């Protein structure tokens, strides 16, 4: 029992390239970095005060926007500062020391370039989306308005902790904090049972992932004796550690972290919460469930990349899960009619691409895709929100058409177009470059079935182009035609709508869609310009290796995720093949070409074909789409495919049957067991024993005074007799 097979993993350690490790800077000149976190917190407190004093204006929105903008400015300033990486101690949180050990997890910041990269788009998009929401949430001014913005503030604070934290416990704090913010905001329309259920589902499914993270933290601490990034990275590079628990501790860490990442970033098998999360207000979907929070899983793996390199099989799993999720979500997205849900599935699918990138050793590609995706997906959601806002909650793409020809809706239509071409990976857009960086690497890196995975991903890219433009062609192009929705949350804000709205918004004729005004349009334009400009870093050479990728690659390089940059001297290329040496010489090929250049053509062609297919079926000859659908449904051998796709492959139902129902049953069984066996049989049964005993003597207790007296007298006589007899006996004995 005491014997432990101690394996020094020195032979694995060369796979882990040097990681830039932060020095502890105590009296730092960047003490103000903490205010990146404090500003959202201040905003939260002020929003709370607004709620307490029942402020009935847009004040909470301006407070939030202002403080988030301050955070953004500070982040940029911090990014321009010289001496990153560094650590900044804010205050002591949990720190214990005892003989022979310690546990230190302080409230401290770990600032390196990966942090800055993430925080820049988190705070930047956060500010813009809060601005958008100030108009979008207008009908709720004085009601849920402060609740909404306090939720946004909580989210930004928690996301800041997650990204900027100096140790795994800070990360965990942020991890659960964003989960709570997500719960709070998904359940914003708390009177609607669907919203409440979706919020609950999001929190609980995320908790499954959190369990993985918690266990990973325990295991890391038990193995390495610390949870602080810089110490961990130093230990890993030195290789000066040994396995505990009979040699599985280091191997198990990446799998546990993976569980956490898959929960938060909505991958198989835990993706089910994200589509339901669309019950929240649209700005929330854009900010939390598309651009920022869901990328936390990517961040986690990128941050802890050295752990994954120690166990190469874990990266293979990451790649496969990512690839399969991308495909599955894309097929579901193809068959949905709700615009927000389509975008939600496309988010799941794109996140799958990012995980694929991590799995095939291109952390740069993954991080770059996170960056570009944050912009174009935010645009898509925000346009969907504008549509929902204007058409009384209508989101069914069959009931909307020709938006680009309607007065006041042109900006929405064309910004959505920008978002769509980026998402579809149309040549020379940001999505094109970032996606290709991942796809090409799938062919470059050697791993189990990575070639197949690469082709699957290309097929997924085709589907993506198709379903993206399916939305745009249906909603924005074509003849003008619309039906208003049923105003999903009318009990919350009908009295603030147009005068005619409440009377006849159910009838088509009296309904006037109200076009977005300045704040929404401004934000849409800014973010879509950002989405286009996000392609620029690709053309810039980066400082260290001189390869493409610009400052994004630089930023990834300056962090613990460094080892995944192609061309980086330490880029291991293939984990199973350590003989890899000079750049791309031994790389795989596609159709006889270097994968990176081949991918430009393949991806362009695939995207174009998907786009044309969408234009054909959903713009030029819409009746063909209906004919195709009825043809598919009428053939028994293929019928299952569209049905399964429309029903999301029945994943929710399967989970219900396999997990929730058995547990629920077990709960009832335990409840009955507790009531009848533990309490009924054991406890009450035991307490019945003395009662049974008492029943023997019960006849004596007949309540008649004199019968008690008889008993007493009889007892006394008996005692006297006994004493007499005993005395005689003993005396007799003594005499003899």
């Amino acid at each position: 029992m005491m014997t432990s097979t101690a394996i020094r993993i020195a032979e694995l350690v060369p796979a882990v390239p040097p990681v830039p490790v932060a020095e502890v800077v105590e009296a730092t000149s960047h003490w103000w970095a903490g205010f990146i976190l404090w500003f959202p917190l201040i905003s939260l407190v002020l929003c709370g005060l607004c709620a307490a004093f029942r402020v009935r204006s847009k004040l909470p929105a301006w407070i939030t926007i202002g403080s988030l903008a301050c955070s953004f400015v500070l982040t940029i300033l911090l990014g321009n500062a010289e001496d990153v990486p560094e650590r900044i101690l804010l205050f002591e949180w949990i720190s214990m020391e005892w003989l022979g050990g310690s546990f230190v997890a302080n409230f401290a910041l770990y600032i390196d370039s990966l942090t800055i990269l993430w925080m820049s788009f988190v705070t930047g998009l956060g500010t813009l989306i809060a601005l958008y929401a100030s108009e979008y949430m207008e009908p709720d001014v004085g009601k849920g308005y402060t609740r909404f913005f306090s939720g946004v503030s909580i989210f930004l604070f928690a996301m800041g902790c997650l990204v900027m934290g100096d140790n795994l416990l800070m990360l965990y704090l942020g991890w659960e904090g964003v989960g709570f913010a997500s719960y709070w905001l998904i359940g914003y329309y708390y009177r609607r049972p669907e919203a409440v259920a979706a919020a609950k589902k999001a929190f609980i499914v995320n908790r499954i992932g959190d369990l993985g993270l918690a266990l990973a933290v325990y295991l890391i601490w038990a193995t390495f004796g610390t949870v602080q990034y810089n110490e961990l990275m130093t230990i890993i590079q030195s290789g000066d550690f040994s396995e505990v628990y009979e040699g599985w501790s280091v191997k198990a860490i990446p799998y546990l972290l993976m569980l956490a990442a898959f929960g938060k970033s909505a991958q198989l098998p835990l993706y089910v919460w994200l589509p339901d999360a669309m019950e929240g207000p649209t700005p929330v979907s854009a900010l939390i469930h598309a651009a920022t929070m869901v990328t936390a899983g990517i961040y986690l793996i990128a941050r802890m990349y050295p752990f994954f390199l120690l166990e190469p099989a874990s990266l293979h799993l990451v790649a496969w899960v990512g690839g399969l999720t991308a495909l599955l979500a894309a097929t579901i997205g193809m068959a949905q009619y709700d615009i927000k849900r389509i975008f939600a599935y496309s988010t799941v699918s794109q996140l799958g691409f990012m995980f694929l990138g991590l799995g095939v050793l291109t952390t740069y590609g993954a991080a770059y895709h996170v960056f570009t995706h944050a912009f174009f997906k935010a645009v898509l959601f925000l346009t969907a929100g504008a549509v929902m806002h204007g058409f009384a909650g209508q989101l069914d793409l069959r009931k909307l058409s020709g938006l680009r020809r309607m007065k006041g809706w042109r900006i929405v239509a064309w910004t959505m177009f920008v978002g769509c071409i980026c998402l579809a990976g149309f040549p020379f857009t940001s999505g094109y470059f970032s996606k290709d960086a991942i796809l090409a690497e799938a062919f470059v890196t050697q791993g189990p079935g990575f070639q197949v995975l690469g082709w699957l991903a290309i097929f997924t890219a085709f589907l993506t182009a198709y379903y993206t433009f399916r939305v745009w062609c249906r909603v924005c192009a074509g003849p003008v035609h619309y039906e208003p929705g049923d105003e999903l949350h009318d009990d919350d804000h009908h009295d603030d709508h147009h005068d005619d709205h409440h009377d006849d918004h159910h009838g088509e004729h009296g309904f006037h869609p109200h076009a977005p005004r300045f704040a929404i349009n401004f934000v849409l334009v800014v973010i879509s310009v950002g989405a286009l400009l996000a392609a620029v870093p690709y053309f810039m050479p980066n400082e260290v290796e001189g390869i493409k990728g610009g400052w994004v690659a630089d930023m990834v390089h300056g962090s613990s995720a460094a080892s995944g940059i192609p061309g980086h001297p330490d880029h291991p290329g293939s984990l199973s093949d350590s003989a890899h040496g000079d750049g791309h010489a031994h790389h795989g090929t596609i159709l006889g070409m270097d994968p990176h250049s081949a991918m430009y053509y393949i991806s362009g062609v695939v995207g174009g074909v998907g786009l044309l297919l969408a234009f054909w079926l959903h713009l030029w000859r819409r009746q063909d789409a209906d004919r195709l659908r009825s043809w598919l449904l009428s053939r028994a051998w293929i019928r299952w495919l569209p049905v399964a796709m429309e029903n999301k492959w029945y994943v929710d139902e399967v989970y219900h049957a396999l997990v929730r129902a058995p547990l629920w049953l077990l709960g009832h069984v335990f409840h009955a067991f507790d009531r009848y066996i533990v309490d009924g049989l054991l406890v009450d049964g035991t307490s019945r024993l003395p009662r049974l005993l008492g029943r023997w003597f019960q006849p004596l207790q007949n309540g008649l005074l004199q019968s008690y007296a008889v008993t007493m007298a009889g007892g006394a006589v008996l005692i006297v007799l006994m004493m007499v007899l005993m005395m005689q006996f003993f005396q007799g004995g003594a005499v003899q």
Partner: protein
Amino acid sequence: MSWLLILLPLAGVVAVVLSPARMAKIVAMLTTLVVFGVSIAAAVGFDGWGKGTWGLTGSFDWLSRYGIEIQVGADSVSLVLVLLTTFLMPLAVLGSFTSVRERLREYYGWLLGLEAAMLGVFLAKDLVLFYVCFEFTLVPMFFIIAIYGGANRAKASVKFMIYTFTGSLITLAAFLWLAWSASQAADGAWTFSIAALTEHAVSGLDATQQGWLLLALLIGFGVKVPIFPVHTWLPLAHTEAPTAGSVILAGVLLKLGTYGLYRFMLPMCPEAVVTWAPLIAVLAIIGILYGALICWVQTDVKKLVAYSSVSHLGFCILGLFALNPMGLEGSILYMVNHGLSTGALFFLIGMMYERYHTRDMNAVGGLAGRMPIWACFMVFFVLASVGLPGLNGFVSEFLCLIAAFAAGDMGAYPGVLGPWYAAIAALGMIFAAMYLLIMVGRIVFGPEKLPPGTPDEELLPQDLSVREITVLVPLAVFCIVLGVQPWIVIDGTSAAVADTLAVYEPILGQAKSAVQGALVGGAP
């Protein structure tokens, strides 16, 4: 100072009984506030923070012929629990102003008597005072449940009384046997001092004797905690008790059990603890999962929170038997945190009950629109209870679990548990989120649903009154403070915990050095 803490509530009892009925609550409130003030003063003046020493001591000869000398005093751990008690009492009194409307003098008298007994338990330095106070807590609680409780109060109070009393009788037997054995060893000189008996138990008893001692202590304190198969009195008593009764029951009375385990079992029978800790941990884990799944199918909100105590205290026990500093610190923090957050949940449910006269989740729902302040507090304390980082519950839960995880013979730190214990117990985190969020989803959110004839707005406003907010705000403040600054408790009690664990070092250190030897030997 200790005497003052015990005697002041008793003086309060006299004052309450002598005062007119309408003044009773004022007198009780003042008394509890003064006691709280005294305890703060005691804590400030206490010089044992961060040291393992005792302070605030005092003694009183009673039956010195039999070595019975009433000794009081506190070390840092007991002082933390004293503070928890004195902090919760004024809130419990304040929270009863509208819910208790008859036999007022009696009610507040019992509450104050209960406070004296609980403080007596935490401040006792000898077994006689400890045991007397430990048992005496039952009496006020019995009457509080039996007179002011819900519909099924008679059964609940009797069950509570007999169940816990039976358990502690076995503990009494063990205490007496221990004292007798000590007197035999000391040539007939009796003593009931806890310190002396602990010393005797460690050095004078062999492993089998310690095993019996452990079993007897486990029965008594395990019922009180409660540990899995002996928990069934708790849901009933919690459900039927009046609000303040539930708060005190969950907040402090359950902690008597864990405190007893910490104060007696861990120091007295180390060898037996090392042998039996895995079994106790398994019971704790069963309690965690079993309690959580039962919570899931409850429709009575109060019963749900009651069962959640069974689940939550499993973590506390797990931390205790990890036998390392993190686990013990986590466990002590857990005692405080559970008192705060579960106490607050009982207050909130009581506030709902006062208005809607039901605790059935199917009958009432969607109260967020009518009672936004109440809803905010509800969500807040549910999150504290679920263990959201940044609030108090997280720190203690995390420390207990990581301690259990690392405490394996294969692990980095010596102990007798291991990763599987923590991994399975951690499933409780998911279940906790499930049942508590389902509860919130039904009574706080969703479409509004009110039972007929309610709300009762005769005495109470629609949303919380200023008095009710005053009850909740201090709890919320401490939830945040202990969530971000847990070192207040951790640093204060670290030395006491280290002293408690010192006796385990030779026992567990052997295992540890064996593992290290293997590691060094295995390294190339």
